[in-house]
């Protein structure tokens, strides 16, 4: 046990001796949390206020507007065209979305049916365009059905559409009432960024730390270690513990600092501890499995960074997973970050308890078992 602790403490000391480790552990995540938190944060309604102009004025356009207004990141407000122009000129809104007359027919004929006029330099313009398109496409099937129905029943498509979507609206209203009653909230702003960037930078830190396995192997340190009376088990456990403890310290400090600086409430401490533990096991396992599959530190950095950044994108670390297409949301179930974010959302936004994060916990532990098995079974010791 003394030898395991000696290896562990030596590795921790080595990590904290590097100034770059402190920047990577704390500086970068806090900076990114602040930057992204401001974009998607509490002030998002001020930063992204979009004027909506309804030239169509039908039940269909009203449904689109209703869908857009439910968005949690961007604040859409209804104005007439003149007001909207004035607001855009005075920079009080960051863009105008205009639902044009004959929107349904245009959509059917695959013509542009809505216009988006962004202010200069607005970074979220593609996101807003995508949201408007998604809102229209989600109602497209009703329009198609209403147009066919109108033809057969000799009615206007608008009245058929109204009948078709009436039930839908009732169900939606009932669902919303239930959601509000259950106090479910989406994770927003600084809280979202804090959780997301904590995950990402802990992963990057662990990638850098597990690279020491390759460094030690390349420098002949492992060969020398195995000429001393220590076992492989002791060496690996020593390293593993050091990774786990450094990751834990990083998470603890990030939680502490984000609570203090950005007023993030991380929810139940016990549940948080369990979630962070499961996530760390998974992340250390991922780092070790990458280290076992590559030969050089350079390969570890290149492949590891690619894996982390892409899975973070997929797992909803940078932006809410709800804004990506359904297919991507399904694929996201196969990356650990999705489950970690689900767990954090449950704890931070919904004041969840251990029971509420059981599924993310189990899935993360499952990932940990898989990654650690790959890492330990494929590790090259000489």
């Amino acid at each position, binding site marked *: 046990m003394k030898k395991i602790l*000696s290896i562990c403490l*030596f590795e921790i*000391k080595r990590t904290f*001796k*590097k100034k770059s480790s402190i920047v990577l552990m704390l500086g970068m995540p806090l900076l990114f949390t602040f930057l992204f938190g401001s974009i998607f944060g509490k002030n998002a309604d001020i930063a992204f206020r979009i004027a909506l102009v309804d030239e169509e004025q039908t039940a269909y356009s009203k449904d689109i507007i209703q869908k857009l207004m439910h968005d949690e990141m961007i604040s859409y407000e209804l104005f007439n065209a003149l007001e909207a122009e004035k607001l855009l000129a005075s920079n009080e809104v960051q863009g105008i979305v205009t639902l044009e007359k004959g929107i349904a027919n245009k959509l059917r004929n695959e013509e542009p049916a809505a216009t988006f006029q962004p202010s200069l330099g607005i970074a979220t313009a593609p996101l807003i365009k995508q949201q408007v398109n998604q809102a229209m496409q989600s109602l497209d099937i009703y329009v198609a059905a209403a147009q066919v129905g109108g033809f057969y029943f000799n009615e206007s498509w608008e009245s058929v559409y109204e009948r078709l979507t009436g039930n839908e609206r009732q169900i939606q209203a009932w669902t919303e009432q239930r959601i509000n009653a259950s106090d479910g909230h989406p994770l927003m702003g600084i809280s979202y960024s804090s959780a997301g960037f904590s995950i990402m930078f802990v992963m990057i830190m662990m990638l850098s730390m597990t690279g020491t396995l390759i460094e030690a192997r390349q*420098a002949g340190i492992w060969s*020398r*270690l195995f000429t*001393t*009376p220590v076992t492989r088990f002791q060496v690996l456990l020593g390293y593993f513990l050091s990774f786990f403890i450094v990751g834990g310290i990083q998470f603890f400090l990030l939680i502490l600092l984000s609570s203090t600086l950005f007023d993030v409430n991380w929810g139940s401490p016990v549940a948080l501890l369990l979630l962070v533990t499961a996530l760390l096991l998974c992340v250390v396992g991922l780092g070790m499995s990458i280290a076992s599959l590559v030969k050089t530190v350079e390969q570890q950095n290149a492949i590891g960074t690619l894996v982390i950044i892409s899975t973070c994108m997929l797992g909803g670390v940078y932006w809410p997973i709800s804004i990506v297409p359904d297919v991507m949301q399904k694929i996201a179930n196969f990356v650990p970050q999705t489950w970690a974010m689900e767990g954090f959302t449950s704890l931070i936004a919904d004041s969840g308890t251990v029971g509420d994060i059981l599924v993310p916990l189990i899935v993360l532990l499952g990932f940990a078992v898989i990654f650690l098995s790959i890492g330990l079974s494929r590790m090259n010791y000489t």
Partner: protein
Amino acid sequence: MLTLSDVKKSFGAHEVIKGISFQVEKGESFGLLGPNGAGKSTLISMICGLIPNGEGEIRVNGKLVSKHRKETQQMIGVVPQDIALYPTMSALDNLMFWGKMYGLSGKKAKDRAKEVLEIVGLTERGKDRVETFSGGMKRRINIGAALMHEPQLLIMDEPTVGIDPQSRSHILETVKSLNEQGLTVIYTSHYMEEVEFLCKRIAIIDEGKLLISGTKKDLNNRLAGGIVLKLTVGSLHPSFIEQVKKLNGVEKVIVQQAEEIDVHLQSKMESVADVILLASQSGVVIHNMHLKEANLETLFLQLTGRSLRE
């Protein structure tokens, strides 16, 4: 102290150690000579339990390495060919770490690390990071790490590769002094002069086989000739070589290149004069000639037909 009995090792179908046996007595300094790829490092890796031996037995102080790996490893200090240290940590931290790997506790490890720094002559640099050291200083700390637990047997695998003459001399003097204090040393190198300086007994291995072993005197006696006459000639007739071989006092003739021959002579200058006379009579023009005392390098050449540093 150390006994190897018919040790063999194969990697797949490739047999790298082909039945090597030798013994090293307590307090002895034993040299293991051989060119790159001869099997020296594999042999050392087996002695210190890094890789299992295939057939045969390796015993350290009577204990089988294969059965008592931890106990035998505790008796051995290994200085690897690589500088296996943590560059961003201080010399003191490095030494303490390796001490702890041999079971030294915190206080003992620190005290011993200070002693070791003195042995390797780096007391003043103890708190400096290893990455700021010269190659020679790193090598000295590399040796120091193997001395932390006061081993009974020190195995050094080419510990002076790539360092300046001053550091090399310091290392050799340190090892000689440790050996004189009773530490058993196994020193591998392809620098014949280092082995000749340090070791009382020497084994030469090549292609996984032990070619010869014994004291320096034993090995010198095995040399085909005490003096080597190196000749560079204008043109070489095969008949000339045959005639040289028949001369009194000539042990062996080795044709190095088309116009270069080594004539191994038992001794004495009259044999040299006979060779020159024969060349003159045979019409062979001698462009250059010099005499060389035979040494281990010569012996290795005789045994394998190759140079030690090939």
